[in-house]
């Protein structure tokens, strides 16, 4: 079951903030966030496990609402290097906890 991401694309000026959302129709075991630069492989940012939590670094963080089956990625004071496509990946409870499925991605463009 593919998670749904929003928005599909966002354009920011340096220093602005952004929020990317991810939702699932099935109960979640974990939520992952990845960033992919053009022509490259995706890079792992963070994983949030069931139980509901928030984690991350100073400027890139994420939350996981287990009850709502949603996660959000927060990018604050964006930098040019944040540009890329962000993917949310989900694994569901039970036998599906090893199956990692991705959303369609959110293209983030940071301009000077």
């Amino acid at each position, binding site marked *: 079951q593919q998670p749904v991401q929003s928005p599909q694309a966002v354009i920011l000026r340096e220093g602005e903030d952004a929020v990317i959302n991810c939702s699932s129709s099935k109960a979640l075991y974990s939520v992952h966030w990845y960033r992919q630069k053009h022509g490259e492989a995706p890079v792992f940012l963070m994983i949030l496990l069931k139980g509901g939590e928030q984690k991350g670094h100073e400027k890139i963080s994420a939350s996981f609402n287990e009850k709502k089956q949603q996660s959000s990625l927060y990018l604050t004071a964006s930098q040019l290097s944040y540009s890329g496509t962000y993917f949310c990946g989900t694994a569901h409870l039970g036998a599906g906890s090893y199956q990692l499925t*991705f959303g369609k991605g959110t293209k983030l463009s940071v301009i000077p």
Partner: protein
Amino acid sequence: SQTIHQWPATLVQPVGSPLSLECTVEGTSNPNLYWYRQAAGRGLQLLFYSVGIGQISSEVPQNLSASRPQDRQFILSSKKLLLSDSGFYLCAWRRDRDSGAFFGQGTRLTVV
């Protein structure tokens, strides 16, 4: 430290020809292994995943198959390629279901 190797980086194959892409992981044992395909400008489609030797889960019915002959080796194959098989093929590994996924450099396949 762990590393993942995927080759070749690019491949041009005629329609109807066979395919074999190999992925190996070093520095860990019993990894969870994944094959994804990404069409140009699109999301990551999960093709196969494996939690152990000889254990393959297929997500999409198509003319592709996967095998895991050794603990840290994952192979993606096709007997006869179709034009629609073109794309960016990515292998990934995870330590366990509580860990993030780390991707190989990918193989850009063009079927002509």
